[in-house]
């Protein structure tokens, strides 16, 4: 489920897309595309956008998923950040994300945190994470 979701983000970012777009641009079989859209919507990865007068549904990646994936960490996080194009711009840095938007970035984790979290309750919709291996990585040598 995550792989086609990440591919959809890589291709469409946060723009709306249709089932036929998955077929035409990602080469998915129409049945596979429909199945993915159905499951991803049920799981909250995608938001359905119905437009008046349009027969076919459009979908958009759910921005709140970014927070969940970052907090889960691991390979999915790495793939998502890469799909969002962050590796080309912020490799080796820390980024603060609100949904798909980078609200701030810094090579130093603590400098970034000072700006984003001036108090412990601030900006609870923002998550901080590394893009690739940080140039200023935290080291715990125990």
């Amino acid at each position, binding site marked *: 489920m995550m792989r086609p979701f990440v591919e959809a983000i890589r291709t469409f970012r946060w723009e709306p897309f249709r089932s036929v777009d998955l077929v035409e641009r990602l080469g998915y079989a129409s049945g596979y595309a429909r199945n993915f859209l159905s499951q991803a919507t049920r799981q909250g990865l995608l938001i359905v956008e119905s437009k008046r007068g349009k027969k076919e549904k459009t979908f958009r990646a759910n921005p709140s998923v970014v927070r969940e994936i970052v907090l889960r960490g691991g390979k999915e996080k790495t793939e998502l950040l890469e799909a969002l194009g962050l590796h080309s711009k912020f490799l080796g840095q820390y980024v603060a994300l609100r949904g798909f938007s980078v609200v701030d970035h810094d090579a130093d984790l603590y400098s970034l945190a000072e700006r984003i979290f001036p108090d412990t309750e601030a900006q609870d919709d923002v998550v901080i994470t590394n893009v690739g291996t940080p140039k200023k990585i*935290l080291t*715990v040598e125990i």
Partner: protein
Amino acid sequence: MIGVGKCWAFKDDEQPPYPTIELTVSSGDRKATISPKVDTGFNGSLAIGREAVRKMRLTARGTVLIRAATGHSEVPVYAVKIHQPDLALSFTTLAIGTERSLAGRKLLENRTWLLDCEQRRFCATTPKSATND
């Protein structure tokens, strides 16, 4: 002349005993007093142990990659306020979540410390002589 200020006793739940410092961490209206191990091999400010995270019901504000002796690993980060009245410390910082609490070099920097392995105490020093010695 350097004097000895506030001291904390070494913990002896492992041998040899190790230096600690006492801090209060808070988030919102929840707070906990912790005794992180002083770890000069940690280049961050604070690592907060699982027990304190659970007690304070801290919510992760992200995840970051760290380098440990066993290799790289990904850990959660928490926004916490640190209070240490004896050192006049009170600031909000990002703490990484680890197995046990650690006080790193960023927390210790810009201050002179006394690591007294004979009397098994870790102390902040004062510019004047013998205030608490």
